């Protein structure tokens, strides 16, 4: 049953892509796409139900064997058969992921009906969107690293296609390329890690890898190396340090794309992958620490960059990077379930925020700069309310989903003794609240700053857009209760549900400490909100401006994203170009020089041959003639024409003959 889940969107993509672009009306295209997404969601729900009833927590279904067994010699000297099967694995983690992907995906599909209504490449968009959904589902359902990689690459491709959807715009095309290439660097790490595991263990299968790690057949060093390489792939896909630079630029794509791909699903693939391979990562403590630290630093750095952005979508982009950092913090301290929990809640409120932002942009006929917004609270109230819910959730206000997941992560971090990570996480949470409410204040509060063209048409979005928004808002509020901690009266059902897939993580904290942490987290959030309101509403951003004026260097540094993009450009792009220039030089000087040299040598030889021919051969021939002439002109002097000379000759001859005759005979 669960194998069908990716099938529906795949078929939808094919139908829309091959037929829809040419033959379908907009209604038909929309119906196909939404229908495919809906069927996928239904299959996911059905599979989930089946899992709840089933005795076996894991089921693996193999479709066929792609590469039959070939014997490989593993590092330990033994022989293992390496098979590559088209196999899918369904367990609690897969259940969570598929539900999130298909559920949120369905809502976004519906939203797109309205948002993309006026776009001329309607069918192409929905085809890509369905294709993406299918690829993501393959990724999360893969039973071995090979299938996972197929999905991994698939989502990368769709990301490229969708970011650069409006490819006639240079910035969009460049952004798509940047995303793909940065992802590729990560993919390289993924492949190397996979290869290392194959070499060490002789298997790609996830279950097999876990079993091998538990059995102890893997050396610590190898495990660490493989884990770190795989994590590099995760940083690329999930936009962590050092491969995050593509995500802000990816905002060039349509807003539904930003919501689906860059909030809820693709960027969480890295998180999923680490959770899947939790046995490997747990085994290598070093790798886990790296994960946690990376997540923590990314969370804070991205949050600082989000503080100074002026484009509404960019703020949300940096926020995404920051929140995914949180997820990795959770994973990095061993609380895999907490990380996945935050993944789920983040999917709800981040896609809500993006879609709401899309609604704002739509209302203002395309304006995205917050400096030219304001005073929209009364004009688009439904959008405002949805947005507010999302902002509260992400800030971690108690009662909403974000609070539960974020708190669980921070608690786990504190409990693991990694206080640096914990404090960075806390700082990140504070900044999150601040920049989110800065956004709200600039966009909705205060006086209207938008210009003429937009002001005439400020209107609420159509129902196709608003309904998904409100559904997501509900989820953003309620979704956290599945993970309600025991402290607050819940059963931590989420963590327990995920146990078979990601292991158990017990928080051993005294009750008092836990409560204190919760209060602290909530406190910094509220503080952030209040501060933002104070600066941006009451004083209309004056303090911020004065701060920026007083520390221009700092402000410049942060607003230029720490010049990371520029550094990458110089180092990597410049490096490749320099290599190209060197290769060209070598080609021109060395290779061409050699070729020219050969040609010159040949020419020299041929002119030498010619000289020989002319000099020696012709010389000999001419020489014969000249010698002949010389001899003959010498001999001709005998022909004096004078009789006495001839007479003399005759007589001499006769005498000679006589002498010989007489003496001889």
């Amino acid at each position, binding site marked *: 049953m669960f194998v069908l889940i990716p099938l529906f969107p795949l078929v939808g993509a094919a139908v829309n892509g091959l037929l829809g672009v040419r033959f379908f009306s907009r209604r038909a295209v929309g119906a196909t796409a939404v229908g495919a997404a809906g069927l996928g969601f239904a299959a996911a729900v059905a599979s989930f139900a089946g899992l709840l009833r089933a005795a076996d927590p894991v089921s693996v279904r193999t479709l066929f064997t792609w590469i039959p067994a070939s014997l490989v010699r593993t590092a330990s000297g033994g022989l293992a058969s390496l098979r590559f099967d088209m196999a899918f694995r369904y367990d609690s983690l897969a259940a969570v992921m598929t539900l999130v992907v298909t559920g949120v995906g369905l809502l976004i599909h519906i939203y797109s009906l309205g948002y993309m209504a006026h776009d001329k490449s309607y069918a192409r968009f929905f085809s890509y969107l369905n294709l993406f959904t299918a690829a993501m589902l393959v990724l999360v359902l893969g039973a071995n690293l090979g299938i996972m990689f197929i999905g991994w690459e698939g989502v990368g491709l769709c990301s490229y296609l969708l970011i650069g959807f409006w490819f006639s715009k240079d910035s969009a095309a460049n952004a798509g390329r940047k995303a793909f290439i940065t992802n590729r660097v990560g993919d390289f790490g993924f492949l190397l890690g996979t290869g290392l595991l194959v070499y060490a263990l002789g298997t790609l299968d996830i279950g097999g890898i876990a079993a091998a790690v538990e059995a102890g057949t893997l050396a610590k060093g190898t495990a660490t190396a493989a884990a770190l390489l795989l994590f590099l792939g995760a940083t690329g896909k999930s936009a962590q340090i050092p491969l995050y630079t593509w995500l802000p630029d990816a905002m060039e794509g349509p807003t539904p794309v930003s919501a689906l791909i860059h909030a809820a699903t693709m960027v969480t693939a890295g998180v999923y992958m680490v959770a899947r391979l939790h046995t490997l990562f747990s085994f290598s403590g070093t790798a886990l620490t790296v994960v946690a630290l990376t997540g923590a630093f990314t969370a804070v750095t991205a949050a600082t960059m989000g503080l100074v952005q002026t484009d509404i979508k960019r703020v949300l982009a940096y926020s995404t990077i920051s929140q995914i950092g949180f997820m990795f913090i959770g994973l990095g301290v061993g609380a895999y379930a907490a990380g996945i929990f935050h993944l789920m809640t983040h999917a709800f409120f981040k896609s809500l925020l993006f879609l709401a932002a899309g609604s704002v942009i739509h209302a203002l006929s395309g304006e995205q700069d917050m400096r030219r917004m304001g005073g929209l609270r009364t004009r688009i109230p439904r959008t405002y309310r949805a947005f507010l819910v999302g902002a509260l959730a992400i800030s971690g206000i108690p009662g909403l989903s974000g609070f539960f997941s974020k708190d669980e992560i921070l608690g786990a971090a504190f409990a693991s003794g990694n206080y640096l990570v914990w404090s960075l996480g806390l700082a990140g949470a504070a900044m999150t609240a601040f920049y989110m409410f800065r956004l709200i204040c600039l966009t909705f509060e205060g006086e209207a700053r938008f210009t003429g063209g937009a002001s005439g048409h400020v209107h609420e979005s159509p129902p196709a857009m608003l309904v998904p928004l409100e559904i997501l808002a509900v989820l953003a509020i309620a979704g956290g209760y599945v993970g309600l901690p025991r402290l607050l009266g819940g059963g931590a059902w989420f963590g327990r549900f995920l146990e078979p897939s990601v292991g158990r993580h017990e928080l051993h904290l005294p009750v008092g400490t836990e409560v204190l942490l919760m209060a602290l987290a909530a406190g910094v959030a509220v503080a952030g909100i209040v501060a933002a309101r104070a600066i941006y509403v009451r004083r209309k951003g004056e303090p911020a401006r004065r701060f920026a004026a007083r520390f221009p260097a700092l402000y410049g540094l942060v607003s230029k994203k720490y010049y990371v993009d520029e550094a990458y450009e110089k180092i990597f792009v410049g490096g490749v170009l320099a290599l190209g220039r060197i290769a060209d030089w070598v080609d021109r000087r060395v290779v061409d020089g050699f070729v020219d040299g050969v040609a010159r040598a040949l020419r020299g030889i041929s002119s030498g041959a010619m000289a020989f021919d002319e000099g020696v051969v012709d010389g000999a021939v001419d020489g014969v003639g000249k010698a002949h002439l010389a001899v003959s002109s010498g001999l001709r002097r005998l022909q004096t024409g004078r009789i*006495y000379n001839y007479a*003399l000759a005759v*007589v*001499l001859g006769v*005498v000679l003959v*006589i*002498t010989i005759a*007489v*003496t001889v005979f």
Partner: protein
Amino acid sequence: MITLAVFVFFAVLALAAAVLVVVQKNAMHSVLYLAFAVLSTSGLFFTLGAEYLGAIQILVYAGGIVVLYIFVIVIVNLTEIVPERRPLLAKIVLVAVPVGTGIEVAYLFLAKGFPVEARPGGGPGFRALAETLFGSYLLPFELASVLLLAVLVGAIVVARKKNLHDPD
């Protein structure tokens, strides 16, 4: 004995005259000495027993050819003395070679001895000569007369002034 002395006398005379013929600058003088040489030769013939030939020699050579030469020199007015300019080396060679050759052949003869032994039978007597001439050598004799006729005609033809209708 006397024959030998006469022979030597005539021989010396002939040789001297011959040298003088060759050396003279003036053609007329050469002709004179030629006459001397020819007459000396005739005398030699007489001493050698060829009386008929000696007589013919005087008649034809001295009387005919020498006179012919004198006539020619007079008619063509050979007053001009051709300057005998020749490189000295050439003159020496040209003299030495024939003279040397002659001496060399003579030496050969003398050293080796005459290859053929004498046969008795006296000299070429007149009667024997006549018999042989009109006997074995009749044909050449007749041919010789034809030759003389041809020469006669030919000389006239060649020496003639070129007339206008002469295809030459």
